[in-house]
């Protein structure tokens, strides 16, 4: 039974620079990198290649000593040119200089019948050895799933409502077969169901015809596309339960692995943001260096390049590398300037969820904004109430949860629903917060407290 769920709470951050649905021509990307810091919860990363080694796409290069079974593999074939470490020898990046033509490791191929006949154990072993496993994220905690667990359900959100998010219908065009194959595999990993969340607003998606899943439709402002919100409305996570989530890209990747026998890390990314001259899509691979897309393609020099979107993304250098899970690059102006009486000047140029004195953006409900990275004020104690609740379409009291985390009160955190959220679910709170709290950082702190207690 598919449900239509209309969410009222939330807020769409409308920005300038949405990617046009076409693929641009760019200089081929030379280097790719896997950043262990992208895998939140990876505690003891261990590199198994050395500088100078050559790898194929799908060759293992890294694993987590706390989750040894799961291999992290090279997205492209080529030479390991640098293993970059930071303070205390923290592993930061494993860089690969890509071959001009990608060579793949050859893995076993599966027909639909093979998948149906294979044991769960065999499928899991195959996935963990070939590099697709890190696509599976476990809730609670939002970390790479533990292959030993069996999830209650698997959730996949097939649309993204983040600011300037890529259009998944475009990303997944023509991939429905692989997607179906991926679903067939995933179905064998859980005794529960596989749930797809589709946008109730967009036209027919190819994903609407996928078999063997329960499809639900969500409409409303961001965060309607967040898988955490969808889980909350379909089958909320309770204490002691494990749920797995995937991005549709991960499902396709699993499908390709089983169908073609290759670890295929190719992906489309959206180049977005007010500072990108020509916002289009680009064809690349996981962990792509962004300089080919940024160099000569920005409107000014004082630009912040963000891997991902402006709500949950991460600032990277102009020649940095795209995050493992990101399908979007956003370039916005850096906001490192003083503004005379900036706190009381009336403005129509800055977006606000609020309507306090002089914040006039509510007059232009369709306008797209070119926001910069200025914090627009200083951090203060919580004062305004009711705002976080109004952008969080879940039965949760975000301020109470955040205060419980700050107080490190474990029982309160559990009772208030820490298991149901990860950073992205409360990212809007961080945007609208009058008191400028680092909400996502606090959420992660709470998750880690609970996870390792």
């Amino acid at each position, binding site marked *: 039974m598919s449900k239509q769920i209309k969410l009222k709470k939330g807020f769409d951050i409308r920005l300038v620079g949405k990617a046009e649905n076409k693929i641009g021509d760019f200089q081929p990307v030379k280097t790719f990198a896997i950043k262990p810091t992208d895998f939140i919860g990876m505690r003891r990363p261990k590199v198994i290649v050395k500088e100078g080694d050559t790898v194929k796409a799908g060759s293992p290069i890294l694993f987590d000593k706390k989750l040894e079974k799961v291999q992290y593999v090279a997205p492209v074939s080529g030479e390991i040119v640098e293993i970059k470490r930071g303070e205390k020898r923290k592993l930061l990046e494993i860089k690969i200089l890509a071959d001009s033509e990608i060579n793949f490791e050859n893995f076993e191929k599966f027909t639909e019948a093979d998948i149906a006949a294979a044991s769960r154990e065999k499928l899991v072993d195959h996935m963990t050895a070939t590099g697709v496993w890190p696509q599976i994220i476990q809730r609670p905690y939002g970390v790479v799933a533990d292959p030993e667990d069996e999830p209650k359900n698997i959730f996949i959100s097939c649309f993204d409502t983040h600011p300037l998010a890529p259009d998944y219908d475009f990303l997944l065009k023509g991939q429905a077969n692989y997607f179906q194959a991926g679903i067939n595999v995933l179905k064998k990993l859980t005794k529960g169901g596989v749930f797809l969340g589709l946008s109730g607003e967009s036209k027919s998606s190819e994903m609407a015809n996928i078999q063997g899943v329960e499809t639900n439709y969500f409409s409303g402002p961001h965060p309607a596309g967040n898988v955490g919100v969808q889980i909350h409305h379909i089958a909320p996570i309770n204490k002691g339960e494990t749920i797995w989530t995937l991005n549709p890209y991960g499902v396709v990747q699993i499908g390709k692995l089983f169908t073609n026998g290759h670890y295929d890390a190719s992906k489309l990314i959206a180049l977005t943001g007010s500072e990108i001259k020509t916002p289009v899509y680009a064809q690349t691979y996981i962990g792509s260096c962004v300089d080919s897309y940024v160099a000569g393609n920005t409107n000014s020099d004082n630009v912040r390049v963000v891997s991902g979107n402006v709500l949950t993304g991460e600032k990277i250098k102009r020649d940095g590398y795209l995050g493992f899970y990101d399908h979007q690059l956003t370039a916005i102006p850096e906001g490192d300037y003083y503004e005379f009486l900036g706190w009381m000047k009336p403005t129509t140029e800055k977006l606000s969820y609020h309507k306090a004195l002089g914040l006039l953006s509510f007059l232009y409900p369709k306008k797209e904004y070119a926001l910069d990275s200025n914090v627009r*004020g200083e951090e*203060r104690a919580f004062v305004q109430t009711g705002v976080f609740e109004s952008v969080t379409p879940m039965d949760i009291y975000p301020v109470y949860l955040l205060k419980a985390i700050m107080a490190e009160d474990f029982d309160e955190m559990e009772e208030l629903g820490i298991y149901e959220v990860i950073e992205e679910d409360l*990212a809007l709170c961080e945007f609208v917060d009058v008191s400028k709290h680092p909400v*996502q950082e606090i959420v992660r702190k709470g998750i880690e407290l609970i996870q390792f207690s």
Partner: protein
Amino acid sequence: MKFLRDLLDKQKPLFQKGGKLENLYYLYEAGETFLFSPKHTTAPRGAQVKDAIDLKRMMITVVIAMIPCLLFGIYNTGHMHYLAVGEAASFGDKFILGLTLVLPIVIVAYAAGGLVEAVFAVVRKHPINEGFLVTGMLIPLVVPATTPLWQVALATIFAVVIAKEVFGGTGMNILNVAMTARAFLYFAYPAQISGDQVWTYLGDKTPVDGFSGATALSVAYQSGQEGVDAASNLASHNSAIMDNMFGFANMFFGFIPGSIGETSTLMVLLGAAILLFTGVASWKIMLSAFGGAYIMAAIMQLLAVNEFMAMPAHYHLVMGGIAFGIVFMATDPVSAAQTESGKWVYGLLIGVLTIIIRVTNPAYPEGIMLAVLFMNVFAPLIDHYVVKANKKRRLQRATV
């Protein structure tokens, strides 16, 4: 504005770590951020852009919302004076007299409170809180224009220290700071904030014959004591200086004696409109508090055993400080209930309690002050049960 910026940048090292005036950093910071919003950029991970709002803007919105009450209060202070002494005066005369009385109170409240804020900021090493912008304006509006300035200063200092700073500053306080200041005055110096003599400034002049400085509430209360119909008693009150002074319409417009900012329900509603339109204050609290007051007053009317109780319910809403208290004090987000359903209960009980205190308690003819403070104390309890219900829902669907 470049020269200002240059000036600030030049002085900055003095106040930064290692500078001569390092201890005064937060004073410098307060000035700097008042003039220029800072150039901080967002953290590398997390939200890369932020909403244009900040606490300064939110607080200044509340101050703006109080300006109609302030301006009207200034005028009315002069207006009442000339009415009482029986002299004709122009609008300008009234306004200027009011200004000479009210402005010092505002300045003293801001100065005294600002001083406390500054001392605490320096000693406790935290930024100066914008909450004071609001408190410093609220306190003058809830005292009579005749209040001695030293009392204003003392009450402000008491309230900012005891009601706010000891808890850790804006956002941490349990009681509404301005209401605490008023309660302090009420209990410490009752002679200057209650009775019939304090509401109208007379100066060295003698009032006209038959003038009474009583407030509408105390007249209504007296009606109860004497067994005369409250509405007609109110209407005929002070007929020596003005017809129908305590008629419903005049009380609504606010040309009556009372604390500086509280008399005009119309101006309060104008402020309420600003607060509600900008979304800074909770409409739930306002609506439920006015509703609670009206319902309770109507119940009182049904059960009337004296003439005060029998007074028409809607009179209660324009008398005394109830409208001002509900709109500007009860809605203070820090001391109010913080959950959305809690706000309904909190507001409703403020309205109900105000009327109960007014009608049944002979010692305090004004109920809103104690009702707000009382409910401030109970707000966390209300929230506790609302949040508990949320936890219970979560627990019930769990199977383990």
